[in-house]
């Protein structure tokens, strides 16, 4: 019970997101109307993905420093959940775009950037599976994971700012990659930030379950 407080918190925050997110009064902005509620589901996915991939990279660094294979398993599972978050973010975004931009995929720079980011992390798993030796696999894929994160950040944070986009704040070239702070009115903030925390914690929870499963499955050679 002592260690599960954050799981309870995650569940409570998600229940709050799902109820308050659908019930509160939202401002009507442009052609968004009620679809703005998707903000509580679509945007937290990207926050979650960035945090989970960061955690994955940190575990890769820890693996390289210590040589402990458990860190490599953790890096792998966090990257996997990061990909899951990315797919969910793309899908929720595509649904949103169908009703606001008229089509699910409109080659928006941010859509392209996150699709590429998914490819980068899928390549991480291709790389992992190409090697059979465990230590070698762990070391080589850790190196790739760290390298990939440093490309991933400019890819999603910097490049989309250089071009026009359909996303909020994308009319000028100074736009924020996705979130436009001024559009978020105080009542929406009250749901939005708990949603970000809730979804991220859920991502950590999913990763944790996978990690425990992997540790159990591979305990024969882990010596733990």
């Amino acid at each position, binding site marked *: 019970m002592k260690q599960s407080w954050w799981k309870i918190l995650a569940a409570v925050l998600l229940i709050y997101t799902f109820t308050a997110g659908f019930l509160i009064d939202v401002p009507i902005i442009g052609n968004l109307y009620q679809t703005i509620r998707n903000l509580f589901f679509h945007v937290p996915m990207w926050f979650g993905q960035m945090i989970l991939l960061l955690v994955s990279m940190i575990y890769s660094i820890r693996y390289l420093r210590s040589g402990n294979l458990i860190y490599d398993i953790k890096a792998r599972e966090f990257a996997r959940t990061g990909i899951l978050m990315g797919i969910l973010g793309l899908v929720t975004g595509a649904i949103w775009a169908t009703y606001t931009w008229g089509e699910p995929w409109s080659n928006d720079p941010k859509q392209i950037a996150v699709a590429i980011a998914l490819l980068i992390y899928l390549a991480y798993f291709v790389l992992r599976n*190409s090697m059979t030796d465990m230590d070698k696999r762990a070391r080589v894929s850790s190196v790739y994971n760290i390298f990939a994160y440093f*490309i991933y950040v400019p890819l999603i944070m910097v*490049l989309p700012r250089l071009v026009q986009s359909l996303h909020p704040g994308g009319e000028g070239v100074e736009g924020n990659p996705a979130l436009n702070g001024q559009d978020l009115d105080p009542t929406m903030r009250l749901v939005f930030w708990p949603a970000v925390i809730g979804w991220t914690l859920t991502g950590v929870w999913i990763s944790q379950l996978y990690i425990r499963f992997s540790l159990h499955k591979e305990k024969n050679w882990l010596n733990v």
Partner: protein
Amino acid sequence: MPSTQKIAALFKKDLLLEIRQQYTFYGILLYIASTIFVLYLSMGQPEASTWNGLFWMNLLFICINAVAKSFLQESRGRMLYYYSIAGALDFIIAKLLYNFLLMLVMSLLSLLLFSFFLGVAYSKILLFAGIVCLGGISISLVFTLLAAIAARANQNAALMAILGFPLIIPQLLLLVKISKSAFGEIFRENALLQMTLLLGGLDIMIVVLSLILFPFLWKD
């Protein structure tokens, strides 16, 4: 600690190998020439934006072929020998420098052949040549570390393309954008400088990452 002497010796060894067994150099040259010739036969002389896109795609494939061999040609035994005479940093710096030089030559050669076959679509020759050099260097830096990774993963050249294509896209997009300035497109004030600096920053970051990460690939 890296020593200039060892780096110079390793660099010279790669250069000597290239000069003595010229099959790779001519092989890549033939690769450039035949790709461009096929493009010429199928497209004739395309308009500027197509020209630009084709050029960078072509450079990407050339880079994969040219840089891949820098690690794939080293056998296990030879790597062990390098390990005993030089440090990881010496080795990666020598490789980075060598691939840098190789891609510089290849980029300029493909620019020459592209202009010869597909026509001169750009309007500012010197500017475009500069961008091409910068582009060739940027691509070669990324692929040097990727070649090292792919070489550790069972010497698999196809793996390098799988890892490399998504990772190179940010730089390739920037390059395609920057090079539009040589085709007469007008940019907002400072936008060009901003993008060039961003590309330079990315290059520096990649070099630093290579220097930090390569020693971990080197140990076995």
